């Protein structure tokens, strides 16, 4: 879907808010960034139009796409970033590669409810890494920073090793920047507003970030 299509489905134009990156991290990783949009949405079953969209995506995503995916600029950019932050993208998959692998194993993009399905659609369409958080639980602007001594992720036992790269709000870390997902974004049955967050790395154009956020918001509100 093009950006115009996503906008017309939404009926309003999301204006992504830009997060900040800790200066010493930004110095190491030019191009690293964070953008998010808040949208009304709840945890729950996926609506039929979104399920149909998932089926359509499954039908036009073949094994050859998965094989050649890492040659495309955006998936390649995330692979490179994974290497640069000490992760092996063949073990800890980038979001788009994990979805491609799941698609090949399951034979389809299986529905996992909302808002996960919305993020799946946007990621498969654009290659951009997305996360969802409960907007009501966020405090101030989001950022990418390394963890301080004694910090931990919400709802998870144990402390983060100092220097772990995280997505954080002005209070505390919310989630690992990439890697094994350890938090659920704080989404609960009473969540009424969802913050869809896109992580940008060097090589991923701003247009792709905007597009991913638009698509995800449109799917959440479908």
């Amino acid at each position: 879907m093009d950006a115009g299509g996503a906008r017309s489905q939404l009926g309003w134009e999301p204006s992504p808010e830009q997060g900040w990156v800790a200066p010493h991290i930004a110095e190491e990783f030019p191009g690293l960034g964070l953008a998010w949009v808040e949208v009304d949405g709840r945890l729950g079953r996926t609506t039929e139009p979104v399920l149909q969209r998932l089926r359509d995506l499954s039908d036009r995503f073949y094994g050859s796409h998965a094989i050649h995916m890492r040659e495309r600029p955006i998936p390649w950019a995330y692979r490179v970033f994974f290497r640069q932050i000490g992760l092996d993208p063949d073990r800890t998959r980038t979001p788009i590669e994990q979805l491609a692998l799941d698609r090949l194993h399951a034979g389809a993009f299986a529905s996992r409810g909302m808002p996960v399905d919305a993020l799946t659609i946007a990621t498969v369409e654009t290659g951009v890494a997305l996360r969802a958080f409960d907007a009501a639980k966020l405090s101030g602007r989001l950022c990418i920073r390394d963890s301080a001594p004694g910090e931990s992720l919400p709802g998870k036992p144990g402390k983060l090793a100092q220097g772990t790269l995280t997505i954080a709000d002005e209070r505390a870390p919310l989630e690992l920047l990439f890697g094994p997902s350890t938090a659920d974004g704080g989404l609960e049955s009473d969540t009424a507003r969802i913050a869809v967050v896109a992580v940008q790395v060097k090589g991923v154009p701003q247009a792709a970030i905007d597009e991913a956020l638009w698509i995800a918001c449109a799917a959440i509100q479908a």
Partner: protein
Amino acid sequence: MLTTLRVGGDERLARAELRRQIGRLEHQLSRLAAEAFPRVAIDTGVAGHFAEPRVAGLAELEQVRDALADRIAAARVALETQGELETSNRELLRRMLAAPAEHKWLRISRADVGEPGCGHWHSRPRLGPLGMLMGWWRVKVSSGCPLSARLAAVER
């Protein structure tokens, strides 16, 4: 092996250069892996240094870069070896097609010559045992696995 660039002792610049090299090597490795599929399985794995994302230091970045360079070298050798094998098999196939009786019962698959699909060429006697006795050999060409749609059509 590439050497680390150190400018005025500034490790940050060295890390930036290593990250650039890692990006370029990752692109080359990805291209080789795609080119090799499905003929040769290319190992693209390079052990990560951390279980969780961190800013990798100079030593870790150097190890990733060197491991990627090693993987690329191994991939090129594997592809070259496979290419030579396929060329040799194509030559053997050419000789078999020209003289089936000199290559009795030899079977060469499409994969052996680097072509997609699951067909094969098989040197077999015409008319079974009689052909064997008379020396009537020919190459039978199999078109490969029937497509699932065709199988479904047959079952209908």
